[in-house]
């Protein structure tokens, strides 16, 4: 693979492109020990996935959880709130579905142990 470097940071990676045309860079170096899959973009640079800081990983997880809460759990919360306001019999059921949805998201996106 090839890495484009600028200010001693890896700003681009590619398994095939050794030129990185148009890109403002200091140099291009070849890395025969890794592939592009081994790298992850963190704060405007690429670093090996194994070297990604725990805090960064967990922040990413938090953001992902947040997005899924909005997409999946929040509608169930709104259903529960409406049933509660209308004093429907199934309000408790809806509450449990909402809480189960949040637990499911947490299980699927666990935080990394530091």
């Amino acid at each position: 693979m090839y890495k484009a470097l600028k200010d001693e940071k890896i700003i681009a990676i590619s398994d095939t492109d050794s030129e990185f045309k148009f890109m403002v860079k200091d140099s291009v170096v070849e890395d025969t020990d890794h592939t592009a899959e081994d790298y992850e973009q963190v704060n405007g640079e690429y670093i090996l996935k194994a070297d990604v800081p725990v805090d960064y990983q967990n922040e990413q997880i938090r953001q992902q959880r947040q997005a899924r809460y909005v997409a999946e759990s929040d509608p169930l919360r709104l259903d529960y709130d409406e049933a509660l306001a209308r004093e429907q019999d199934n309000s408790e059921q809806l509450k449990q579905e909402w809480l189960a949805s949040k637990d499911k998201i947490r299980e699927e996106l666990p935080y990394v142990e530091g």
Partner: protein
Amino acid sequence: MTDTHIKINNVTPRVQYTGNGSTTSFPYSFAIFDESDMVVYVGDEVIESGYTVTGAGQTEGGNVVFDTAPEDGAIITLLRNVPIERVTDFQEGGTFRPKNINDELDRLTAFTQQVQEGLDRAVKVDPTSSTNPEDVIPKVEALYDDIANLDAVADDLTNIDTVASNISDVGTCATNMEDIQAAPGAATTASNAAIAAAASASSAAISAAGTHFKLFHHDWFDYELDDMAWLRADTFSWQDGTVYTEAYNHLVDDVTNGTSQTETISGHTITYTLADDGHKIVSDANASEVEGLYNDAGVAWYYILDLVNHKFKLPRTKYGFTGLRDYVGKYVPESLPNIKGSINPWMYTGTADRPTGAFYEEASNVETYNAGAQSNGMKVGFSANLSSSVYQDNAPVQQRATQMYLYFYVGQFTQSATEQTAGLNSELFNGKVDLNAANLSTEGKSLISGLGMPSTRYEDLTLGASGSTYTATANGWAYLAMGGGTNPSAEISSDTIATRYLSASSDTRTFHIYLPIAKGQTFKISYSNVGNLSAFRFIYAQGEPNV
């Protein structure tokens, strides 16, 4: 005592030698009676002294011995020249001696040989010739008078031989002598016709371009000249001094003989050389001040001269004028013709007092009153068209304008063979091409207007980390297509042009961002929460080559 005598043999009494610079003795084999009978020539001159003659009185002759050897190559001629006279007088009853008779006969024989030798060197006519020998000499003398031409003929004998070998052609020439003699006249006539034609063409060009041909005379023309002696000035192009030699050399002379001056106009201080003829010449190093003056004041009446690169620019001005033409295309001054005419308040139908100019009789037999009496008068109409054809019926009087071009007469010009072949068209168009895009064809305008638009050619690029920057190596468009993720957003920004930003709350959309980027400019791409990249490419502008 034996009476011996010399015997005159049948020998020519003349002998010649060529000296070698060392031989002094030259023999002769004819008999002479006395040393004085020998005449000695060296070259054409008779030598009277400096030699001795031996063998006088000997039948077999003798030698002429020079004191100093004649020069190498000198012609020595020994000639017997016995005085023709009797040296004896035999008396009646005197003693008869055979020797005396023999001697006298010898002398007579010598005389005869001497005369024969002279005859042999004389001009003679053939025994069968009818020419009187006396007539020959005047002709010879005439030829001698023309000896220079004869020598010339002799020197040109080779050519004469050539003529002789082509004598049949010479004969043909003689046969056609009348035509040949007429040829120079015909050639002159043709030449005169050609000169007249050239003069006519020149006159036509002069008539077309104006009547003034003083160097750097300038004038406005309502059409573009294709005469290279006239340069269009309002384009402010550099003119090649090796082509427009007369103008360039004149400006060089102006600079050489002029005086340095400085003047400030409209805040621009111009340093120039003032020539005797009033020309103001600025060096190319100060051309920017002239440019600034032109931009601010509209007039920059200076010549700009580049002595290093042998080129020059002509003065220019923004203030041309728009000429006018009448409806038949003739140039007219920038004003409308006068409208005039006359009517008589008491004009009657049928009288001689008619309306003139722009007034006309519109109707006749119209009731009118003169001093209370009814009579038939006329109805007077008015039409400006009757006064001048510029005022056409029912047509606006605004006249059509025409573009005027400022030209300078720059005199003689030269072109090298290379310029005449490879660069001729370029030189012809230099400074004379109307670059006004409004004159382009519809296709041309469309082509130009589309040059800034995206083409179908593009370059796929590797997208770097968010915030990475890129430099365009051509004019074109940065294009980004991304989607997926949660609340993705992306932005292409350029300090010099603009920013394009898009974000989406859905994780299913793919959004596309374009931003035009000029060649050499840098742009930045930032993005976040993007699930996948569909495309990141640079799309070349139309007319832009791939880089």
